[in-house]
């Protein structure tokens, strides 16, 4: 079978979690084939990353060039095309960077492309059998791809379990000379960090999180009321922010905040992987959704199949009923 390569994302001299996951995905594609890591960048950080990968990959190709200090997909593509032999299988994390790099890379390699791969189920001749999810995870699909001319596969973060069986000490091979100084028609200017909002949802213990199921902007008050009763804060999924109903700083997910609450109430949220990527620390997840087949029920601890517009007020009322005696007691001291 074709050679397998893994493109390593890294930042500040540290390899991304996906580095080990790509190695696991490579083993699932072909156990017999060693997978080579490819790392692009510049300076001491690059060397640190290459060194750190020696336990996970038998061979690490290092590509150092000043213009690669920031991972601009157009430059990285040129670097990869210069070193990776035709017909190879290239694994890339399905991240904001992978979405930028891989479709074009596959065209320039004349190779097949499958994004957001969550599993691999062997091969039939030159056709590799991959598994994807579609429609926000509501259904899975078998997607076969012809790798006879090579393939670029974007691997979903977290989908492949990084295994412990370390290969022999990997060796770092410097491939920089093959690349030279790539040039781009898209120039990176700067990164602008997310703006802080009125509340910091990343520090809250309890979140009432609302999704597209909230229906209308006016209904957000219902969630605010429940949150107030619980002493929680309202967060949300992306469509609520896209509609400009809530501030970006309230968005949970891969392109929003990463939250670590004790309790996460997902109300009218379907449970897409981009949303779930922002929920860390293994909170107790209560999902309320009118669709009993919603993907959120596959990851929640408890599920309630109901209309959130009815359920949230009912719960708020119940919470208030319980806490009335406590409040009255407090008032007596005033």
């Amino acid at each position, binding site marked *: 079978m074709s050679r397998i390569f893994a493109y390593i994302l890294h930042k500040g001299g540290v390899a991304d979690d996906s580095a080990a996951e790509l190695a696991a995905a490579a083993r699932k594609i072909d156990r017999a084939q060693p997978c080579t890591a490819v790392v692009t960048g510049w300076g001491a950080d690059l060397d640190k990353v290459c060194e750190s990968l020696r336990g996970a990959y038998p061979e690490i190709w290092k590509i150092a060039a000043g213009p690669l200090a920031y991972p*601009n*997909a157009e430059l990285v593509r040129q670097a990869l095309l210069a070193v990776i032999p035709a017909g190879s299988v290239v694994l890339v994390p399905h991240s*904001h960077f992978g*979405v*930028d790099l*891989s*479709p*074009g890379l*596959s*065209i320039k390699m004349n190779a*097949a*492309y499958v994004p*957001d791969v969550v599993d691999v189920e062997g091969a039939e001749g030159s056709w590799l059998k991959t598994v994807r999810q*579609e*429609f926000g*995870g*509501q*259904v*899975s*699909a*078998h*997607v076969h*791809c*012809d790798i006879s*001319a090579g393939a670029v596969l974007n691997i979903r973060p977290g989908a492949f379990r990084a295994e412990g069986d370390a290969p022999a000490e990997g060796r770092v091979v410097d491939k920089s000379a093959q690349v030279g100084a790539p040039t*781009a*028609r*898209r120039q*990176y*200017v*700067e*990164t*602008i*960090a997310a703006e802080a909002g009125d509340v910091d949802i990343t520090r809250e*213990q*309890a979140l009432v999180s609302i999704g*597209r199921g909230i229906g209308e902007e006016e209904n957000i008050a219902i969630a605010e009321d429940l949150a107030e009763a*619980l*002493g929680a804060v309202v967060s949300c999924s*992306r469509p609520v922010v896209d509609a*400009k109903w809530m501030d970006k700083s309230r*968005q949970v997910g891969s*392109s929003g*905040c990463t939250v670590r609450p004790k*309790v996460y109430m997902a109300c009218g949220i379907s449970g897409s992987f981009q949303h779930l990527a922002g929920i860390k620390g293994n909170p*107790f997840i*209560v999902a309320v959704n009118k669709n009993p087949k919603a993907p959120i*029920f*596959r*990851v*929640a*601890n*408890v*599920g309630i199949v109901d209309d959130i517009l*009815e*359920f949230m007020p*009912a*719960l708020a009322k*119940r*919470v208030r009923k319980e806490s009335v005696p406590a409040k009255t007691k407090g008032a007596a001291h005033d």
Partner: protein
Amino acid sequence: MEILVCVKRAPDTSENEIQLAAAGGDIERDDLVYSVNEPDNYAVEEALQIVARTGGSVTVATVGGEEDEEVLRREMAMGANRGVLISDDGFTGSDGRGTAAILKSFVETGRYDLILTGVQAEDGCAQVGGMLAAMLDYPFASLVTSIEVLQNGKLKIAREIEGGSKEINHIDLPCVLSIQTGINEPRYVGMRGIRQIASVPIPTLGASDLGMDGGAAGRAAAKVRRVDYFTPPEGKGAKILTGSREEIVDQVMELLKAEGGLN
């Protein structure tokens, strides 16, 4: 600026509960609600706003069948100047690469400064824009969340990256950008607008109109095939609470107390 926006008609996940068909292998398609793929609508709005600032025109094109004409009309009702349906029996069964190859041939029949796509189709792979750019040998940026036209034949764009941060780039024209949801507020299209556009003719172009040879698209050229749909693995699975709403609320109350959800 002459802008092409590639649009697609797709099942609307916010309107549908996608289910497997009883026969297995496919999803239940009988009652599916289709609409313009959500990010494509943002792409058309962005194109209209750029043209309002700089002049030029907006063309919307889709690769599909007769039933897809409705999305072109909808985007024309938003204000796109021209719609083109790209359709040919030989295109059936194309993968993303095939669709990109068809769009490339179409692009080469005209002259566009800027080509916009949506980030991803509801039933797609976030690939057509990046592939089209590579085939045209144009620069590309994905997940674009703002566009500013500079004087020197360049755009200043923001790309969304992890954690809500933005990556600012300068990019040469002509280029291809994939537009992320939330970049703007797409204008509302009323029934009246759609009616007004109902009788405007929409040209249909086939493979020969585009000067395409047989090998670049269609089922035989596809390197990627969706073989079937199936039910996702259950995972650990939530405990679904049962009973009347009052009983469920009581149960949730106890759980929240136990898990630290009451502050």
